[in-house]
């Protein structure tokens, strides 16, 4: 249950941004969470809401973009979403493909209400 710490890191990033934009009010922060990141999105939302309530950043919203595991085939260059650990290329059947997504744990955007 490290989502509380992760949620706190998101809020710290927003506060750092707030110092760069004095007077601006932030309404929403976007976070990308990959399925291989080890972070549970629902748990992150729960912790985020608990931390924001009553804080200087309320009523900041969290928008989570869930990122599935994605692979690319080195032979035919097709990229695809991995479902049920099926890593073979859907186009040419090549078994060994490269992971290109799913580990994300990234801030993506902030919505700002200008003063």
């Amino acid at each position: 249950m490290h989502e509380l710490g992760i949620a706190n890191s998101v809020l710290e990033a927003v506060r750092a941004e707030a110092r760069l934009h004095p007077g601006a009010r932030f309404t929403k922060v976007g976070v990308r969470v990959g399925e291989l990141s080890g972070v549970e999105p629902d748990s992150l939302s729960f912790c985020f809401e608990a931390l924001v309530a009553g804080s200087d950043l309320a009523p900041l919203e969290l928008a989570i973009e869930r990122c599935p595991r994605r692979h690319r085939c080195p032979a035919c260059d097709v990229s695809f979403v991995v479902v049920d650990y099926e890593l073979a290329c859907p186009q040419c059947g090549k078994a060994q493909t490269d992971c290109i997504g799913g580990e994300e744990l990234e801030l993506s955007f902030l919505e700002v209400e200008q003063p």
Partner: protein
Amino acid sequence: MSRVPLERKVLSENEHIAAGLRERFARHGVLCLNFISAPGAGKTALLERTLEGFPAGRRVAVLAGDIQTDNDARRLARFGFPARQITTAGACHLDARMIERALEGWDLEALDLLFIENVGNLVCPSSYDLGEAAKIVLLSVAEGEDKPLKYPSIFFKSELLIVNKIDLLPYVPFDLARARENALRVQPALEIVEVSCTTGQGLDAWQRWLDRRQARAAALGIPLPL
């Protein structure tokens, strides 16, 4: 209302400290390995057996993470190599800053190998880079063979899977072939060794893996992850 892009890692501070640690390990030629498993899979037992087999001059040290108690560091210090406990006081994982603090006062130039025993947990430690060259995940046969599918993050990020307690196979319903298959579905590049820290079976294969990994790191000059 306007939207500003904010492209950065959520754990950018941890990643920054981990990058510094990785650079220090590289500079001093230290291969750092991060051991992760559920509680009770046998991380401490594996490290005990490993240290026990090392000659006295082996340049190795251990950091052991736990929520409470310094029991593990005391168990590991018996072999005459430096061992320190990191007590996280509730946190379910180690982070890079804890490693940085725990290394204070240690001369990395005197080491070739650093073992980090993470807090027993298959989820949270997978999100935190500690500057290690490789993560090693342990799974005991007293657990389910579907664990790689249930906790894909850590199996995906590990270089080696150590299946422990294979002496118990006659008494438990664990399907070793299925466990291997599940782990390789999540991470096809995963290497696998099967050991019993009780009987010593398979520990030679683990020792050979370790020697190969150290030789590869030394040949590359820097212990970078794959």
